[in-house]
């Protein structure tokens, strides 16, 4: 038995960010166990570990590692930054949130880090099994994070719902993978790509079933309609910073994994109806997400439906995988992380019993009581609805431009129309912030220094990308070029 080819040169550099987060997480749980009195320090330490992880990207080795199962390249670094950004924002928001809710912290941040490692594995996995392994690592962390407020019934409900349905969805993905293995004789995406590139390949019903199973499983993780009904209940019950993180980072990881898979299938896609299935998922998500969000008064449920619609927009760009599509998805995920975590951040500061819904009435008149926090929420809402000069406008513009250039004009039109409809419920939040009187006994906003810092990061990021997106777009395009050039 010869095991040496398993370890290429510089393999340790290839997984340096993952190692930093793994060891950082272990350090945090031990720190929490050995120094229970210094627990309030775990949040700042977690931020430092995330920053170390981002810094370690400088030393990352690029190439294929671990016997062709792990690929590190430009695009994975872009997505790593997205994951780390989401992790930092969630950590900053949680530091104050957990203290107010009386939850002890070390394990919380450790799970956040290990979940991030799972997402990095999904982004870099060049083998369906590695992607599933990353997905499971991520899912197990999410199950625990969702139920972290274990004395609250809603938190338990969220955790249990996500656990049962998530386990079911993973079953679909595994079954689809098994069928792909049966057809292409490999789970390695590069080998599958060579198999699909063979001009004699025939599309059997088996392959279509495999694709549908895979899309059902990943559709669940993305909260694409019709696999979305878990999202509102889970977001409503989850600890609010976790809900924000859950709505952003796992979706980004799933999208990059799907980009790899779709790219491998590229040669056979014109002779199949597979992309029609994906197009229908996108259309359904945009229509259902945007129309049901209008009826929501609970802010977290509204953001859940808005998230369903947002991932619908991102799925439009998946229909044709080219450089612009990958770059626009990368930018969309970064902007989405900034604006959605910002919005969830303000909601997480509402000091009330977390078992009760956080409704629009709780933020009425906030603009006059807490100008900065209200401004942050308003900017996030403008960005989510896609108004210039925010990052939300730029990212939506790239997505729809890519779709039109690839000839998906009809779907892009549906996207534009539904996103115009979405302006109603996003701006209704702004209306409540500035044009409603606050009532007696109004819910207090309780934002500490960390959470306020997180809001500042998201505002600055949203405007920076909104006003000056070209460097980011060029970097993402170049990374996408390297990914697709294989």
């Amino acid at each position: 038995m010869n095991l040496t080819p398993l370890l290429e040169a510089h393999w340790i550099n290839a997984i340096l960010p993952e190692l930093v987060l793994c060891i950082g997480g272990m350090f945090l749980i031990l720190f929490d166990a050995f120094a229970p009195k210094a627990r309030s320090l775990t949040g700042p330490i977690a931020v430092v570990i995330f920053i170390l992880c981002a810094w370690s990207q400088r030393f990352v080795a690029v190439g294929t590692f671990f016997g062709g199962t792990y690929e590190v390249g430009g695009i994975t670094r872009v997505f790593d930054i997205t994951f780390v950004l989401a992790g930092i924002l969630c950590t900053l928001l949680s530091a104050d949130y957990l203290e107010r809710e009386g939850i002890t912290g070390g394990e919380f941040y450790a799970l956040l880090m290990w979940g991030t490692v799972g997402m990095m594995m999904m982004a870099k996995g060049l083998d369906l099994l590695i992607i599933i392994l990353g997905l499971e690592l991520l899912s197990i962390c999410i199950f625990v994070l969702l139920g972290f407020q274990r004395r609250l019934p809603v938190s338990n409900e969220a955790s249990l719902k996500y656990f049962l349905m998530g386990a079911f969805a993973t079953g679909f993905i595994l079954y689809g993978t098994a069928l792909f293995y049966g057809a292409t004789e490999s789970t390695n995406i590069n080998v599958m790509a060579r198999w699909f590139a063979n001009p004699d390949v025939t599309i059997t019903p088996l392959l279509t079933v495999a694709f549908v199973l895979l899309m059902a499983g990943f559709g669940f993780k993305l909260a694409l309609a019709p696999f979305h009904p878990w999202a509102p209940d889970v977001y409503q019950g989850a600890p609010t910073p976790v809900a924000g993180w859950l709505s952003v980072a796992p979706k980004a990881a799933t999208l990059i994994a799907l980009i790899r898979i779709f790219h491998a299938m590229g040669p056979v896609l014109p002779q199949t109806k597979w992309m029609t299935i994906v197009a229908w998922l996108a259309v359904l998500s945009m229509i259902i997400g945007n129309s049901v969000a209008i009826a929501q008064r609970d802010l977290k449920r509204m953001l859940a439906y808005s998230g369903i619609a947002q991932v619908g927009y991102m799925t439009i760009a998946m229909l044709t995988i080219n450089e612009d599509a990958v770059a626009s998805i990368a930018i969309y995920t970064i902007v989405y992380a900034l604006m959605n975590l910002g919005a969830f951040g303000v909601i997480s500061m509402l000091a009330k019993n977390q078992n009760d819904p956080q409704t629009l009435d709780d933020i009425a008149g906030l603009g006059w009581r807490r100008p900065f926090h209200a401004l942050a929420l308003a900017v996030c809402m403008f960005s989510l609805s896609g108004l210039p000069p925010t990052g939300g406008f730029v990212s939506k513009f790239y997505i729809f431009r890519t779709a039109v250039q690839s000839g998906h004009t009809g779907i892009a039109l549906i996207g534009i129309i539904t996103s115009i409809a979405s302006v109603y419920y996003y701006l209704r939040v702004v209306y409540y912030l500035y044009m409603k009187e606050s009532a007696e006994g109004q819910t207090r906003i309780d934002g500490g220094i960390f959470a306020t810092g997180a809001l500042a990061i998201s505002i600055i990021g949203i405007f920076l990308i909104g006003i000056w997106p070209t460097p980011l777009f060029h970097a993402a395009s170049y990374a996408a070029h390297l990914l697709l050039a294989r």
Partner: protein
Amino acid sequence: MTHTFIPVLIMLIVALGVGVVILSLNRVVGRHQRNPSKAAPYESGVPLLDTNRKRVNVRFYQIAMLFILFDIEAAFLYPWAVIYRDASHGNAGMFLFGEMLVFILLLGVGYVYVWKKKAFDWK
């Protein structure tokens, strides 16, 4: 080819028939007396003292979970120990050793964590 299985089919029909006939005869001819002790579980055993749907201290689950965790660790050690001597030549030896070292280290961190969290104390 198919006809070789006809005896099996006959066998199935006969078995089904016998079962149905005996059970329905019992139903038609037999006497039926119902009383509470017949409806109880363990009709001829010791009378039940209590319900079996009781809440159990969560510590039992905790201990069971920890036991399974560290038990599975041992299950992973065995195959490694079996192939280690044959597989270790050149770099592979160090590789296998390093892998197991990382594995033990991870479990060690978990062990220290649950110890410090007082999960082993029955209080």
